[in-house]
Each structure stands twice: as structure tokens, then as C-alpha cells.
């Protein structure tokens, strides 16, 4: 039967129709609940951490908004960064890894109780660490190393137990090959365990300069050897799975893995260009920052060539747009990091808000978007409950426009800051001239925060519910 469509009565849907997921095959409810617990806690930390970030952004334009010690900028800034590092991003990607590793190993997770122990330890470390930070009890360190050592030790034990859990799962795998995702995921876990131990051992950090050498190394590896490999590993599973075709090149993935390990490890000192640390160390960091382009090109090329020819599938999916945006951000903004490492550009941008823009472009545009793509892509396949495509779209556009606005404002403003200093005008000019850019940053940040509220709602609508209801739902949608 064909309807006659009148041009005046075409109903335009708010969003293009999105493909629905196939009926749930992964019916182990224990597994579903475990993964969802990680995602749920991660989402809670996301809301808290970005609420703090939003408040910090407001302080740049309203410094007298409060005069409360534990709400002051210096106390809350590490709360913002550490919550989003160790609470949100880490738990979310680990939760998805607890799905991907057993799935690609064709083996049940080695131990469910152990995975819950890890979840508790990580949550405790972030909660206690944040309270201590707000009370001014910190490690005396710089970025991402602010939790005092007993707190970070609890976190490290949690991570070590997950690594053990997943390695045992892989060791008992039901297939011959170790799937490429698991190279990246286990690589990220092992590197980070080593990194945390190295960063928290005190003997070679007894004066200001030796501590700085370690801080440069740690600060970069904390991102580049933890979030980068693990979210890439997740994408090596999620992307082919959602497109229903194999990854373009397995060997490119292997090349990117080894170059990741060798090149990324060497570039930490580029955070201290022109500092009184050994000049050769800075030069090595700059050279390998360029070498990093090999890793970027291999990884991004692999993903984009996998997507080639599937543009329609991406447009019809609510999860793949996040992955596309995340992959593009991976290339663009990591490449931005390479460029920033050059001495000529460090002279302009170092110490300015440009750096803040860069860290948000990467941690949010790259890591955050790939996590969201994986969550939206895989969680409905576990629980059988899909979020509303319209609300996922709202999340996508608010987050995308928000972070581009945020970072765009800080990149322009940061460049102006640097030019102000070079011109020799009074320092306070570089503060007052920033005000409009800080205002735009707050606007972008607000959009980002709103998108997280939508994400939290979407996570809620994907929650696992009673399995009989799921089967009934599948039967109903199959009949429709």
C-alpha cells in the first residue's frame, strides 16, 4: 500500500532515523551488571568533575564569587583534573575493557568479584583523594600527581588487579591470536602501573630539578600511556563491530602499538621546554614528538580506511559519529601537540591558556568522544535498552560545539597572552585582555556540562532491567 504524500504534510523528524541494535546476544546478566556499574560510577564522577570545572571557569570572570577556603581555585583545580582522569575517564574505559577483553578472547572474565574490588578501590581513592585535595592536603606535585601517595597506592592496586584479571582472561583465551585491542588495553594497564610506581618513588626526586624531570615524564605518560592506548584499543573493537566489517589493516595497528610504546615514552620533557632541565632531554622530547606523527598517521589512517565506504552507516548510527569525531580529534589535536613542542612555538604558547585548550581538545575531544562512542555502541548491545536517538544527538552536538567553543576561545586568547608578553606590555594586560575569552570559555563549558546531564540521562535509559522484560521487548520490536 502506498501513501500519497502531499508536500504540505510531510512530517520532518527531528533526527534522521537511526539504526537499531540487533537483539541482545550477550545475556550473561552478571557481566552486564559489572560493566554497567563501572559506567554508572564513571558517569557520576563525570557530573561531579565537570560541575567543579564549570565553577572554576566562572571564577576567571568572577574571582570574588566566594571566599571559602575549600572552594578556592587552587584547591578545586586538582579536584577537577583528577576526578575526570581517575574517576570518569579511567573507570569508563576500564568498564568497557571488561567487556571487550573477554569478548575478543572468547572467554569469560577471569574473576567478577575481583573486578568489583577494583571498582571499589578506584572509587575510594578518587573520593578520599578529592576530599584531601579540598582540604589542601596534596602531594606537592604538579598536574595529575596531586593525590598523596597512600591514595594513589589504593588506585594503583585497583588498576593492578584489573590488569591481573584481564591478563588471566587473555591467557585462557579461546582462540590462538591475541586480538589487537588487547595489545593496547593490556599495554596501557602495564605501562601505567610501571609509571605510577616510578612517579611515586621518592629517591630520585629529592631536589627541585630532579623532581621536575620526573614530573615532565609522568605528566605526559599519564595521558599518553594510559588513556590513549586503552581508548584506541576499545576503538579497534567497537569500530569494526559497529560497521560489521574487519579493521582495514591489522599490521598498521601493530605498527602503531610499538611506535606508541617507543615514541610516546620519550616525549615527556616537552612540557618543560626552556626549563633548567638538561637541554638534550628537551631536544630528544621534541624529536620524538615529531616521530609521534608516525603513530598518529598509522592509527588514524587505519580507522578512517575502515570507515571508508560506510559513510551511510555512520550517518544512520548514533554511536559512530562519536567515534568519527574522536578519531579525527585524535589526529588533529595530537598533531597539535607535536607542533606545540617546537621551541619557536613553545616560546609563544608555553604558560598560556593555549595549553589548557590543548588538554581539553585531547582529553575531551579525543578520549571523551571515543569513550562515549564505545558506551553508546556497546552498552545497548548488552542491556537490550537503547537511549533515545534524539537525546544522543543532543549530547553529541552540545558536547562538540561546547568543547570547540571552549578551546577555540582559549587558543585565540592564549595566543594573545603570549603576544602580550612578547610585546613587553604590563603583565596585568595579559589578564584583562583575556576576560572576553574566559567568558566564551565559560559558555562553551556550560554547553559541555549540559551535554553530560543528557549523557547521564541516556546512561539511565540504557540501564539493565529484568531479563524477561528485555526478551519481551526484543520480541515486540522483532514483530513490528
Amino acid at each position, binding site marked *: 500500500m502506498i501513501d500519497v504524500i502531499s508536500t504540505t504534510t510531510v512530517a520532518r523528524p527531528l533526527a534522521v532515523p537511526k539504526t537499531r541494535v540487533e537483539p541482545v546476544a550477550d545475556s550473561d546478566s552478571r557481566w552486564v551488571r559489572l560493566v554497567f556499574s563501572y559506567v554508572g560510577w564513571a558517569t557520576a564522577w563525570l557530573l561531579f568533575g565537570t560541575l567543579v570545572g564549570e565553577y572554576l571557569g566562572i571564577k576567571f*570572570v568572577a574571582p570574588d564569587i566566594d571566599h571559602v577556603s575549600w572552594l578556592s581555585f*587552587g584547591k578545586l583545580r586538582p579536584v577537577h583534573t583528577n576526578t575526570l582522569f581517575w574517576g570518569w575517564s579511567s573507570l569508563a574505559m576500564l568498564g568497557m575493557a571488561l567487556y571487550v577483553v573477554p569478548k575478543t578472547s572468547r572467554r569469560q572474565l577471569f574473576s567478577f568479584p575481583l573486578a568489583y574490588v577494583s571498582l571499589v578501590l578506584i572509587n575510594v581513592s578518587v573520593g578520599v583523594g578529592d576530599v584531601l585535595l579540598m582540604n589542601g592536603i596534596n602531594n606537592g606535585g604538579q598536574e595529575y600527581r596531586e593525590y598523596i*601517595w597512600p591514595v594513589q597506592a589504593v588506585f594503583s592496586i585497583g588498576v593492578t588487579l584489573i590488569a591481573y584479571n584481564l591478563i588471566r582472561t587473555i591467557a585462557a583465551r579461546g582462540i590462538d591470536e591475541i586480538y589487537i585491542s588487547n595489545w593496547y588495553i593490556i599495554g596501557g594497564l602495564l605501562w601505567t602501573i610501571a609509571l605510577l610506581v616510578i612517579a611515586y618513588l621518592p629517591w630520585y*626526586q629529592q631536589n627541585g630539578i630532579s*623532581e621536575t624531570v620526573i614530573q615532565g615524564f609522568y605528566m605526559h605518560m599519564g595521558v599518553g600511556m594510559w588513556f590513549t592506548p586503552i581508548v584506541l584499543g576499545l576503538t579497534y573493537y567497537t569500530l569494526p563491530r559497529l560497521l560489521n566489517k574487519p579493521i582495514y589493516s591489522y599490521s598498521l595497528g601493530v605498527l602503531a602499538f610499538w611506535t606508541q610504546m617507543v615514541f610516546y615514552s620519550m616525549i615527556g620533557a616537552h612540557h618543560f621546554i626552556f626549563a633548567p632541565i638538561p637541554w638534550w632531554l628537551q631536544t630528544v622530547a621534541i624529536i620524538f614528538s615529531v616521530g609521534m606523527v608516525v603513530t598518529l598517521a598509522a592509527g588514524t589512517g587505519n580507522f578512517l580506511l575502515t570507515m571508508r565506504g560506510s559513510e551511510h552507516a555512520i550517518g544512520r548510527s548514533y554511536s559512530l559519529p562519536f567515534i568519527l569525531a574522536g578519531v579525527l580529534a585524535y589526529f588533529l589535536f595530537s598533531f597539535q601537540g607535536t607542533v606545540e613542542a617546537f621551541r619557536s612555538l613553545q616560546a609563544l604558547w608555553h604558560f598560556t591558556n593555549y595549553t589548557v585548550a590543548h588538554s581539553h581538545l585531547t582529553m575531551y575531544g579525543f578520549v571523551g568522544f571515543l569513550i562515549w562512542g564505545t558506551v553508546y555502541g556497546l552498552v545497548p548491545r548488552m542491556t537490550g535498552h537503547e537511549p533515545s536517538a534524539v537525546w544522543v544527538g543532543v549530547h553529541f552536538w552540545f558536547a562538540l560545539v561546547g568543547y570547540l567553543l571552549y578551546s577555540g576561545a582559549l587558543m585565540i586568547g592564549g595566543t594573545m597572552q603570549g603576544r602580550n608578553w612578547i610585546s*613587553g606590555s604590563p603583565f596585568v594586560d595579559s589578564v*584583562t585582555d583575556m576576560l572576553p575569552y574566559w567568558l566564551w570559555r565559560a559558555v562553551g563549558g556550560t554547553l559541555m556540562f549540559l551535554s553530560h546531564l543528557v549523557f547521564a540521562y541516556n546512561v539511565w535509559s540504557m540501564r539493565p532491567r529484568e531479563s524477561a522484560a528485555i526478551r519481551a521487548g526484543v520480541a515486540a520490536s522483532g514483530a513490528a
Partner: protein
Amino acid sequence: MTLDFGKNHWLLFGVSFFGFIALAYVVGIGPAIWVQNHTQPLPGSVAPTALETEGLKIYISEGCVYCHTQQVRPLKMDGVWGRPSAPGDYAYVRPVGVWQPYASAILGSERTGPDLSNVGARQASDVWQYLHLYNPRSVVEGSIMPAFPWLFDIKAAAGPNESVVPLPAHYAPATGVVVPDARGRALVAYLLSRRQVPIQGYGGAR
């Protein structure tokens, strides 16, 4: 036992783990040990006093390091902050407590506010420092630095050895006088101690 990384998980994970540690030694631990063994305090520099060390703890605890560098680069534009920083400038930065068994990170990564390497020479007045800490906008119009009123006490009258912070009426409390507490005094002592030791040919505070 196969030597195929794709099939032998112990080989793959072992090489990844120990390979990373080896690389970490080359660009992290090794250089750190080297600079630690080769950094001496500059001639003419003096070790921090107990009060100044206490002040450094407040500096770290309040998160001053997020907006202030103590790192003058060998660039023309950094000339306003003093001479280029040398490793020896940080030789006296030592661990300060059981929760901080490392030297404190004071070099900083962002310069939202001015560099403080030489602030003791640039703003040598303790009165100015107290005014500025109580509310930065009382002395610097356009500053966005947080106010730190919790480093001060408001009293009916100053004690015998206490000095009143001479706040402009707009920033002063309705009643009573503002005096720095022990933490505020320690922090200001630390800030005033930030004076670069001269290096011949490179400048520094006199």
C-alpha cells in the same frame, strides 16, 4: 613456545612492560638521578629558614603553583621576571613532609599570574603582600587572583606584636582589624625569600 607477539601473551606483555621501564630509565629515572647528583646550591645562596619552609607548605597547599611559575626562561620576554633560572636555584627545594616525600613542584606550568622567582626583590614590602593576599583587587585593579582571607584573623584590636593590614575601607571588615595569622605570615616570609641569587653576567637580585 612461539616467538610470535600475536600468539604468545607472556612475550607480548613482558616486552611491553620491561621495554617501557627501560625507556623510562633513559628519559626519566636516569636523567633525574644525574641532575640530582650534579645540582649544587648557588654560591651565596642560603638555605630556607623554618618559617620559609612552612610558607612553602602553604604555597603548595593553597595551589599557588597552578597560576604562578617560578621558572624564568632564557627568552627576551622573560627578562622582566629576572635572570634565567638555573638548576642551582632549586637545590634547596627539598621534601617537606611525610605526605610529600618529594621536592615540591614549584616550577609551574601556567602563568595566569606573574612569575614569582624574584618576587621578594620586586615587591619587597610585607604590607603590600598582606594587602594583596587578603584581597588582590585592593592593590591590583584587574587582578583575578583569589582572595585568601582564611590566612588572616579579624580581631577587635591588634595584639602587642601584631601588625594591622591597612586595608582600604572598601575591602576592610565592618568592625575590627585584620591581622595575618601564622600561616599568612609564613607564606609572606616565603614569598619575600623569593630573590634570585646573582650569577655574574646573568643578573639577579642584589
